[in-house]
């Protein structure tokens, strides 16, 4: 079962979460940049490379702390993990 829900003072949870937030933030920035600079090949390469890194890190995070996305974008253990807290505004 979900052995590793974030506990009070679980530094690893916050550390891993912030790493993912950092990667995802760069992807948001590059995405908006590419929306107005669609021909910038170097940025597209960086975007694709970070997307790959993000996929690996998100998988690692989800194995430890449960799914990041609903509606079939992540697998679930038993019982259904999605609706379990804590939620982002609570941690």
């Amino acid at each position, binding site marked *: 079962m979900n052995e590793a829900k974030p506990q009070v003072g679980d530094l690893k949870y916050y550390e891993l979460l912030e790493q*993912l937030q950092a990667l995802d933030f760069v992807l948001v920035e590059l995405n908006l940049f590419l929306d*107005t600079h669609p021909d910038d090949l170097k940025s597209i390469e960086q975007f694709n490379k970070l997307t790959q890194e993000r996929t690996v890190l998100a998988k690692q995070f989800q194995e430890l702390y449960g799914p990041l996305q609903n509606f079939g974008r992540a697998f679930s253990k038993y019982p259904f993990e999605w609706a379990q807290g804590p939620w982002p505004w609570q941690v």
Partner: protein
Amino acid sequence: MWVYEKKLQYPVRVSKCDPRMAKFLIEQYGGADGELAAALRYLNQRYTIPDKVIGLLNDIGTEEFAHLEMIATMVFKLTKDATVSEMEAAGLGAHYVNHDHALYYENAGGVPWTAAYIQAKGDPIADLYEDIAAEEKARATYQWLIDMTDDVDLQDGLKFLREREIIHAIRFREAVEIIKDDRATKKVF
């Protein structure tokens, strides 16, 4: 469609118990230049903006929902443990009477959010200039909010949001350049 991601865009921290600040922050939740208005404005305008900049409105509109959730997190954390007397002392007495500890789409003065805050003129230049102005107004609001608190952790999250307004404004200005330059488009159909 949208798929929710169970994480904030930025690690929001609030270190000082200060429900008074929640009353001010609600301006960016349900105010005229707040994140709800921003998200709904861009996501609605995207249907009638030239194809070349639809993606940008779509994506900035989506990011605004992440910012709305950050503001909600700040307000939630500042008020969740406040007693009735603390709410009242923070200027949230009227809010409490109507909403208890619930969040509500209203501005700092308690005025409910209205669609009259946002425009969709259908003219791409007019709409993009409205968007640029909206970003600068939100940036200014974040400055005044940063001025109102000495909690450095709260300031930190607000500074992130302020910087996002600056980046969004650059992108909207680029969008104006893109639609200005699109001269080669065939005029005969």
